[in-house]
């Protein structure tokens, strides 16, 4: 956006809608002759430049073509190279492709990676070629009125997209070596009668082939020799702070291909997503139709890599007013898209502007209809923030999927870390609490016959017999008494004293019928005997061993130290 005002207009330009094509061509001519302002020409290649708002596609073609041709004189700056390659990659208009090919010849650093774009452009344009004039604004070649001249003479100065592409291929020289197999295939096709080049073009292609075909096997390419300059053909990384209007976008409502409503938050949060933009009335099969077909291929890869349902896909239309639900479904299905809750085709219910702002879409409109757009695919993270995007030239499904899979792995590892942190937090609070509870339980646990007798007495004193009848109450009391008697028996065996045990046993004999026959005095006498027996046993024990502390009993619970005593 460098060089643009906040409203997207270039300083010194008339307001959008006020500039005629004639004024525009004059402006471009002015910029190209002013070395300081010539950098602004690159801004004029952006689809979303307000200067293209409310103009027909043919007008935009003329305007962009004239900008591309301006670089012929200036030299192609690095920032403009992507626009030239985009035209070669996806262009279907002979004028723009011819202008791009000619513009590329002014690049100071030709490289082998450019040959592939030129060959693709040849394949794309061969059936749509036209005679164009690159020397004047407008670009349409018109044969002058017939006055007996031959057609060849009349069209001097005019050219065709194929002619320009071949000239650029020749200009690449040995850098076009990688395209030798493709050139040979084209010539072989032509020889079989399937070629679409004129005799002169076929001859030129043969000459180029002869000049670039290596006499001996080419040496191994140096690392990095055949890749595009930095930043071209690579993913654009987004930093979270660069995603504007996040709050607004969250509540944006969509309608999907089945007419179901869903918000941005509902669909794009929770899992990474791959989002592509398109519209059903796009007339360039290398753009929207291919984009949706590639998204369908990506969905198949998701299934193959068992990521289906973990990474979402969405195709969003630029043209929500026309692309109603039924149209979206038909368009997606006919291009092999798999449609379900995690894979949808969407139209916004609130106009395209919020999405345009959020994604920074490369698109412009004439009323609600798209007049020009770029190829663009976005990868969103689990929070619905744009993590990466790939723009202008064709994207590779595997690369996009790898990116999304990385996000998923990253999100999973972050989730794991969060889970672990939560576990640590829980442990930090839970462990001391558990230890405290254990200490209390240990402190209050009946550790000796006296404790048992005391607990049993307390139950009696507090009037447990008055509690409503519970079928489980009697067995518990019986068990407790048996445990108490068991402890006393073991103690009396060690100390050779049986009084305590006998008293407690007599107490138990009284308690049981007391409870069954509801004889209060018998129960009271039984408890008294139990406590007395326990007390005698404990005092005898203290005399023989010194003391019994909680630790001793705790150990005895494990059955290790108890048996050794």
């Amino acid at each position: 956006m460098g060089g643009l005002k906040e409203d997207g207009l270039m300083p010194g330009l008339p307001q959008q809608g006020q500039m005629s094509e004639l004024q525009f061509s004059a402006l471009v001519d002015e910029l190209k002759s002013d070395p300081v302002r010539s950098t602004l020409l690159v801004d004029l290649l952006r689809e979303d430049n307000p200067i293209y708002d409310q103009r027909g596609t043919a007008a935009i073609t003329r305007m962009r073509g004239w900008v591309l041709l301006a670089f012929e004189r200036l030299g192609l700056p690095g920032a403009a190279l992507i626009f030239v390659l985009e035209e070669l990659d996806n262009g279907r208009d002979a004028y723009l492709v011819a202008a791009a090919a000619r513009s590329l010849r002014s690049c100071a650093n030709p490289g082998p990676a450019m040959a592939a774009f030129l060959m693709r452009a040849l394949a794309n344009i061969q059936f749509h070629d036209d005679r164009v004039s690159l020397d004047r604004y407008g670009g349409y070649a018109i044969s002058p009125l017939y006055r007996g001249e031959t057609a060849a003479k009349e069209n001097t100065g005019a050219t065709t997209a194929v002619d320009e592409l071949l000239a650029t291929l020749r200009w690449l020289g040995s850098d076009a070596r990688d395209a030798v197999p493709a050139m040979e295939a084209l010539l072989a096709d032509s020889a079989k009668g399937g070629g679409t080049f004129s005799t002169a073009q076929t001859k030129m292609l043969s000459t180029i082939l002869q000049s670039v075909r290596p006499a001996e096997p080419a040496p191994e390419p140096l690392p990095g020799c055949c890749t595009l300059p930095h930043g071209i053909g690579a993913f654009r990384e987004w930093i979270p702070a660069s995603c504007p209007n996040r709050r607004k976008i969250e509540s944006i409502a969509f309608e999907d291909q089945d007419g179901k409503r869903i918000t941005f938050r509902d669909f794009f949060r929770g899992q990474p997503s791959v989002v592509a933009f398109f519209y059903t009335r796009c007339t360039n099969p290398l753009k929207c139709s291919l984009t949706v077909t590639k998204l369908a291929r990506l969905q198949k890869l998701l299934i193959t890599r068992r990521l289906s349902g973990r990474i979402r896909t969405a195709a969003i239309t630029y043209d929500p007013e026309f692309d109603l639900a039924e149209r979206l479904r038909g368009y997606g299905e006919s291009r092999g898209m798999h449609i379900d809750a995690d894979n949808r085709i969407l139209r916004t219910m609130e106009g395209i502007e919020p999405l345009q702002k959020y994604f920074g879409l490369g698109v412009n409109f004439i009323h609600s209809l798209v007049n020009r757009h770029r190829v663009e695919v976005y990868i969103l993270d689990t929070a619905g923030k744009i993590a990466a995007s790939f723009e202008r030239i064709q994207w590779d499904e595997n690369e996009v999927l790898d990116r999304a899979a990385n996000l998923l792995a990253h999100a999973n590892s972050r989730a794991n870390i969060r889970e672990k942190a939560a576990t640590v937090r829980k442990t930090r609070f839970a462990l001391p609490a558990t230890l405290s509870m254990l200490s209390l339980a240990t402190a209050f646990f009946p550790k000796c016959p006296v404790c048992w007798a005391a607990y049993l007495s307390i139950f009696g004193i507090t009037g447990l017999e008055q509690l409503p009848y519970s079928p489980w109450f009697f067995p518990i009391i019986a068990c407790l008494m048996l445990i108490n008697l068991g402890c006393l028996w073991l103690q009396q065996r060690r100390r050779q004293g049986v009084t305590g045990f006998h008293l407690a046993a007599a107490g138990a004999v009284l308690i049981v019928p007391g409870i069954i026959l509801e004889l209060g005095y018998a129960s009271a006498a039984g408890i008294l005997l139990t406590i007395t027996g326990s007390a005698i046993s404990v005092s005898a024990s203290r005399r023989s061993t010194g003391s019994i502390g909680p630790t001793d009993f705790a150990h005895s619970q494990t059955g290790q130290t108890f048996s050794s005593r």
Partner: protein
Amino acid sequence: MTESTADESRQSLHAAALKTATNADEEAGKRVAAFARVARAICDGKEKLGDVINVLRDTRSPQAVRLAALSALQSASFSVVKFTPCRPEYLAALRSLIDDPDPELRQRVLGILAREQDGFTQQRLLEGLQQPEKALVPPEKALQLLSYDIHADAYPVARKIVNNPPNPAAKREALRLLAADAASAPMFEKILRDKNEQLEMRQLSASVLHSLAPKKLQAYARDIVLDDAESDELKTTSLTALTQFGEETAVSEDNMLQKTVDSLENEATTQDLKNSARNFLRKYRK
């Protein structure tokens, strides 16, 4: 006769026909007949193509001969692979004929270029609609040609023509062109509801709304069927829309609509409306 001999024989016949067709001294009838036989030979070489193009562009040649030359070029263009090298020259030649004094030739040339979505042609057609003195063809024809490309920037001028039409045909063509413009849906609703509008325009609006705003069309179609003052033709259109594309639950539970269509089946004055009512009831009768 071997295959190669047959080919040679055919080629010499084509060459002779092309010689006759491009010979300015030859009788016009013979030249027209010869052009009918040369289509396959036109792209055999750049010179042959140039010769045919020169006949087409030569205003001194008889109209019939020039039109025959154009037809021969059009026929040749169907052999896509063979014609592709000739295409750039062909299109450039056609552009030079946009201002030809012969209106028939001019209109045919404009038609070919408009189907190619040629920017130059669109520019000239729009110019003619905005400044009638520069018009190459009547406005209705220009609108029809512009409608081949939805991206042609013709909507603003088409809207102006709808509001202030030079003739009914131009208005109809402007409406047809706007059928692809989602922003024009409210205008089509207005025309459909306006009983003073011509029936043809209202029917056209109904079919456009089916594409641009199908739910709204369902509501209007219902109103039209229930309105006694509406024409039978429009009721027939509306009933067809409801039968084919109506929301099944809503329509079948609409007692008032059912009752009205019941009576139309028996009492309508036109057979078309009776048939439409019958089809409707066959689908939705409870």
